[in-house]
């Protein structure tokens, strides 16, 4: 792969996450000490399966063991990382209201730019077009001429659009996709209900990984993602989507890591 300083820093952050997980998190200690892992190898002679990566279903089943010994949350945040990717996903600096329409997301996204507010809307509520407070807020914001951004699966975004009055301008929309259902754009976010938002489709047409907060590596079981920013629950080398084969390259235009499935 490429040999830039950015890559070396990205790799160093990943190695720190692996080292910390091995030293403090029961799930990874058990898996890697007793069965092994690769890249980096922690116990010589043991390679484990899938290079030490774990399927997302197993990690979800054992979430209680993903908290470090010092303690911490074991609740995943499916909206994690959204705020940092929105600018690149929409090419707009901010929106007055960011609505996540997804059944898995129960808490609003955090870390949005100043002046933006986040909220979540269950897809059933979006489809029912009833007296839903979030729908009222979306309508009021659009009536004021301010921008609303809706994030979710395409079908849910369609349901939201049809629930809004026809005379109002439609909200901006960015669909998010699971790794096994990536599309060609023109806009899109890479999402996993356990790890949160992992990457974004940029103007070059490639799926870019959020390299400040997420690491990805190729394993025999598929692409393994690591959340670098959160220490609890610690999510390291998780095979999202049941393990989707893919490659990690450097984007020739942006020189940052992109995935190709």
């Amino acid at each position, binding site marked *: 792969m490429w040999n830039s300083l950015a890559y070396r820093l990205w790799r160093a952050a990943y190695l720190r996450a692996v080292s910390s997980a*091995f*030293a*403090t998190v*029961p799930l990874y*200690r*058990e898996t890697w*000490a*007793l069965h092994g892992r690769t890249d980096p190898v*922690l*116990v*010589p002679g043991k390679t484990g399966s899938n290079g030490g990566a774990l399927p997302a279903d197993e990690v979800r089943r054992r979430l209680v063991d993903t908290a*470090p*010994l*010092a*303690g911490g949350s074991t609740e995943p945040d499916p909206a994690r990382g959204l705020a940092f990717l929105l600018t690149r996903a929409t090419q707009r600096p901010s929106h007055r209201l960011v609505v996540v329409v997804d059944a898995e997301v129960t808490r609003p996204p955090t870390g949005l730019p100043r002046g933006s507010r986040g909220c979540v809307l269950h897809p059933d509520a979006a489809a029912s077009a009833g007296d839903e407070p979030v729908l009222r807020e979306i309508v009021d914001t659009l009536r004021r001429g301010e921008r609303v951004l809706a994030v979710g699966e395409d079908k849910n975004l369609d349901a939201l659009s049809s629930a809004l009055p026809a005379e109002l301008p439609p909200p901006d929309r960015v669909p998010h996709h699971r790794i096994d259902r990536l599309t060609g754009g023109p806009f899109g976010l890479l999402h996993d209900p356990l790890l949160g938002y992992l990457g974004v489709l940029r103007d070059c047409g490639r799926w870019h990984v959020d390299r400040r907060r997420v690491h990805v590596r190729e394993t025999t079981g598929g692409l393994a993602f690591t959340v670098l920013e959160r220490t609890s629950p610690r999510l390291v080398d998780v095979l999202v989507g049941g393990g989707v084969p893919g490659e990690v390259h450097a984007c020739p235009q942006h020189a940052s890591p992109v995935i190709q499935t």
Partner: protein
Amino acid sequence: MTVRITRTTVTDARICDPRVDPAPDGWAEFAELTRPHAVWDPRLLRIEGWLARNPPLLVTVHDADGIVAALSALVCRPARLPRYAPRRTRRGPMWVEVSQPWLSGLPGIVRRPTVSGHRLRVAVRAAESTLARRLGPGLAGVFYRGVGPDLLPVLSGRGRVRRRTDSAAVLDNTFADTDEWLASLSKSRRANLRRQHRRTDADPSLRIRGGPGRADADPEAMADLLNEHRARFPAQTGDTRSPIAAPYLEAFVRRPDVHTLTYHDTDGRLLALNTLLDHRDVVVKQHWAALAPDDGGRQGLYFDAYMRAVRWCVAHRRPRISAGRGKLDVKTSLGFTPRDVYGVIAPRPVMGR
């Protein structure tokens, strides 16, 4: 690392880190000869070592015929950091505890049956010297836990400190059957045991299963229950044990010499468990854990487990049962007698002497 002492026979003391080293040379013959409890299996020590804050080292002392004695040496540090032990031993203040963390009231030393007295003393001193060299100047000394009167003269000496600690409860099996054991108890305890046992047996909402090599046991549920049970009681001062990990229990309860008794409710929830380590000399009634009554636990299972354990030992003619330390008054009422247990400290300057 090897230390040679030529006072009696050539004696090599070797240190094996079970996490990464293979079993010591001659371990299979030594284990065949001494039949140590299941917790001494190097494969279990490997799992335990990786998942502990204070991983055990297996120190073996050899002569021309093979292993003379083996010590389970836990490397302990004063700072209880919330992290597992590093892969390589770091410098800094530390001490070694010679004990088997999950064998309460028994020492962390196993010896060949013919080795005692001066030979054993030389072997233990060789192990101490090797530990001192391996662990460096940060090692403050060795603390022998669970020392019985038979080992006390071997471990004691000039400059060493010895103190009597909580006694261990041991039941000598001189009974022809369970009724004879019950007859040796007080009237109220006997009636209580019979009542609890009848009630537990007749309870349709209880699923009781017991036996060796339990492949059907759920190690994660067992580990959760054991750790929750331990957390309900205030931590003992100087308790250097780590939480019990599910992979350890998974390997442990599948062994043919580990009998596991489990109580489930009809929903499949684990209510209580007890493990019994089979042994030709001393059967150890080891882990006990139960849900608190407020969380749906049942009363009386503790005594039912004792009833079943004693019944099994009597039926299989095991000479004695050790129930470890703690709750001595209850265990005494069940016919167990207290046995003196000592702790011996060998400070660094006298280690190996």
